[in-house]
């Protein structure tokens, strides 16, 4: 057969071929466009978060000499830590500042001077030192404390120096002091360890994610303890041992429905059951974990069932045919085979729980807490709720804190998800 006679080489066919190629090109272009859109949206998000968030990882600290004047702190000379705790450390800091700038005499100027330093952070810093070691009273100390959030923002370039001072939070006089202190290296940028070790605070320069991070860990621990064993057990029962009847069908349908229920509903449920009915305290990781556990249950069940169903029937038949019991066939063969899938599903369910916010608002894990929780029964909050709280603050300094907390949350999520992928790849190779 020559080309000319082949029906696949006719003019008509060639035209159709051309059309088909054009269609393919169009489709590929659209696909690329879609990917491009998705990637640029993601890139934008990341750039805007990292672009503001990185500034929270360093902070301008003020190093100054303070005199722990005995007549102010301990006039009776008792050195009693409990009394020392109640002493006036603000005065000590003020005096240290006036010492540093002896020219300042005017009351208003004195107040402005005090405002360049963290107004609660600095006194509390030396308060803690004196409480830990009462012998420090009467001595001179060199301390490093955070500058106020306004000064920090000024030095980070977030406050415009060129506009009129009535329109910004730092006065010209304050800028002059700060510039001098920067020149003498008394104020300098340091890595912000407080962001990682401090609990939440009203003062942006002191706020950290430690309490929220620990709260997240404890909550997630309770969630995993509830959702993973119960979810896997329920899935095995449903898949292998449940009788086939209307009631079981009803349960199955509702588990799928449950996965689609908005998470806030689980918060309402948790409020009604755990707090109002069982009388558990509000705001504690146990309740949060239980609520998120209920939320994660359907996800774990569905993932486990999908993995179990993906195990070839022939494996089970093989086990049964040499006299394994049903339970043995499931636990010796199906479950190990489904293991990587179950593990991946569970980890992803935990990652979802880590990012869950709404149901925790319902059970009061949104409280403002300045203590680091020590156990799952202490009031706590979690990372996404912390982000929610900080995002609601209007001052400039909170913007970078919020972004930095988002960065930490994303980082944890990325680590968890990579762990899931790594585990799956690693375990699947064995089969």
């Amino acid at each position, binding site marked *: 057969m020559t080309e000319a006679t082949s029906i696949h080489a006719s003019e008509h066919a060639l035209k159709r071929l051309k059309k088909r190629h054009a269609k393919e090109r169009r489709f590929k272009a659209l696909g690329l466009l879609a990917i491009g859109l998705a990637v640029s949206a993601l890139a934008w998000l990341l750039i805007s978060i990292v672009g503001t968030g990185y500034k929270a990882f360093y902070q301008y600290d003020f190093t100054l000499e303070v005199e722990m004047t005995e007549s102010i702190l301990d006039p009776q000379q008792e050195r009693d830590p409990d009394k020392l705790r109640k002493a006036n450390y603000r005065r000590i800091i003020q005096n240290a500042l006036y010492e540093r700038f002896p020219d300042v005499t005017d009351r208003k100027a004195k107040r402005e001077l005090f405002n360049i330093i963290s107004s609660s952070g600095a006194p509390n810093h030396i308060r803690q030192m004196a409480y830990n070691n009462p012998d420090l009273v009467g001595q001179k100390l060199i301390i490093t404390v955070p500058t106020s959030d306004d000064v920090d923002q000024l030095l980070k370039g977030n406050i415009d120096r060129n506009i009129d001072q009535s329109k910004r939070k730092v006065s010209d006089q304050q800028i002059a002091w700060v510039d001098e202190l920067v020149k003498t290296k008394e104020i300098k940028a340091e890595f912000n360890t407080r962001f990682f070790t401090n609990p939440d605070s009203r003062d942006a320069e002191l706020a950290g994610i430690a309490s929220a991070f620990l709260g997240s860990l404890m909550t997630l621990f309770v969630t995993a303890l509830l959702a993973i064993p119960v979810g896997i057990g329920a899935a095995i029962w449903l898949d292998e041992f449940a009788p086939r009847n209307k009631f079981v069908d009803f349960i199955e349908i509702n588990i799928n429905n449950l996965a689609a229920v908005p998470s806030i509903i689980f918060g309402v449920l948790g409020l009604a059951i755990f707090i109002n009915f069982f009388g558990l305290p509000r705001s504690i990781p146990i309740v949060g974990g239980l609520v998120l556990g209920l939320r994660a249950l359907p996800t774990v069940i569905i993932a486990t069932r999908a993995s179990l169903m993906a195990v*070839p029937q*022939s494996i089970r*038949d093989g086990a049964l045919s*040499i*006299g394994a*019991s049903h339970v043995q066939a499931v636990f010796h063969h199906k479950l*190990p085979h489904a293991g990587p899938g179950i593990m991946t599903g569970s980890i992803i369910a935990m990652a979802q729980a880590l990012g869950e916010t709404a149901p925790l608002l319902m059970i009061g894990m949104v409280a403002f807490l300045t203590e680091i929780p020590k156990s799952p029964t202490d009031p706590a909050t979690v990372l996404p709720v912390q982000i929610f709280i900080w995002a609601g603050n209007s001052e400039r300094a909170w913007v970078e804190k919020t972004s930095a907390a988002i960065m930490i949350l994303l980082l944890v999520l990325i680590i968890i998800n990579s762990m899931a992928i790594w585990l799956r790849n690693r375990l699947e190779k064995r089969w």
Partner: protein
Amino acid sequence: MTELKSTHPKIKFTCRDVRVAYSGKEALHGINMDIDDRGVTAFIGPSGCGKSSFLRVFNRMNDTIPGCTVSGEIKMDGDDIYAPDLDPVLLRARVGMVFQKPNPFPKSIYDNVAYGPRIHGLAANKSELDHIVETSLQKAGLWDEVKDRLKDTGTGLSGGQQQRLVIARTIAVSPEVILMDEPASALDPIATAKLEELIDELAQKYCIVIVTHSMAQAARISQRTAFFHMGNLVEYDVTSNIFTNPKDMRTQDYITGRTG
């Protein structure tokens, strides 16, 4: 009922009016049949005639299929294997099964063979278990090929090796009967020849029932052949009679390739 001209005196299974139904739809319509101990009994017949359904009656694997019901009387060595107090799990230790598609466990070769003895407590210690694994693999004709890589995974073997591994796994629990459902259909001619040789050997010690689509295979390895058609046992006789002198038209048509 089809009379059996047996060359062996001992009968392993007696089946009376065996019916198998899936969700109420009958697939086997009252089978009466005796199966000899020792030797190979082959089931042949067109696709969908119920060979596999009948084979699964003997180790009660039909019980594991949702909606499948079995009725009638099936006795093994004179005992009803569907008696209410009989544990199908123990029955399956006595009646092993090899499937169409090789299905070794995704574990090491050693663990594949050792699994049955382990769950049935057949070995008192590690060396006894090693011994069972070795003799089973030897009987399955696989020992020489795998003795240096018992730790390798069973699914990494070739199809024919996998099928012999499955046979070793079955033999390891010391069954009396081995059921085989088209065991060679996924194998190439060389692996098939090896498997047939093995079946021939095993027939000295075990009662083997094999479903096959290959007429030639049935003729080569079986002593007795049963021809099924649309859920009925049409003809059951010594293999040479079935192939040289079939009594029923349907059998004749099938073995000469006119139907099926």
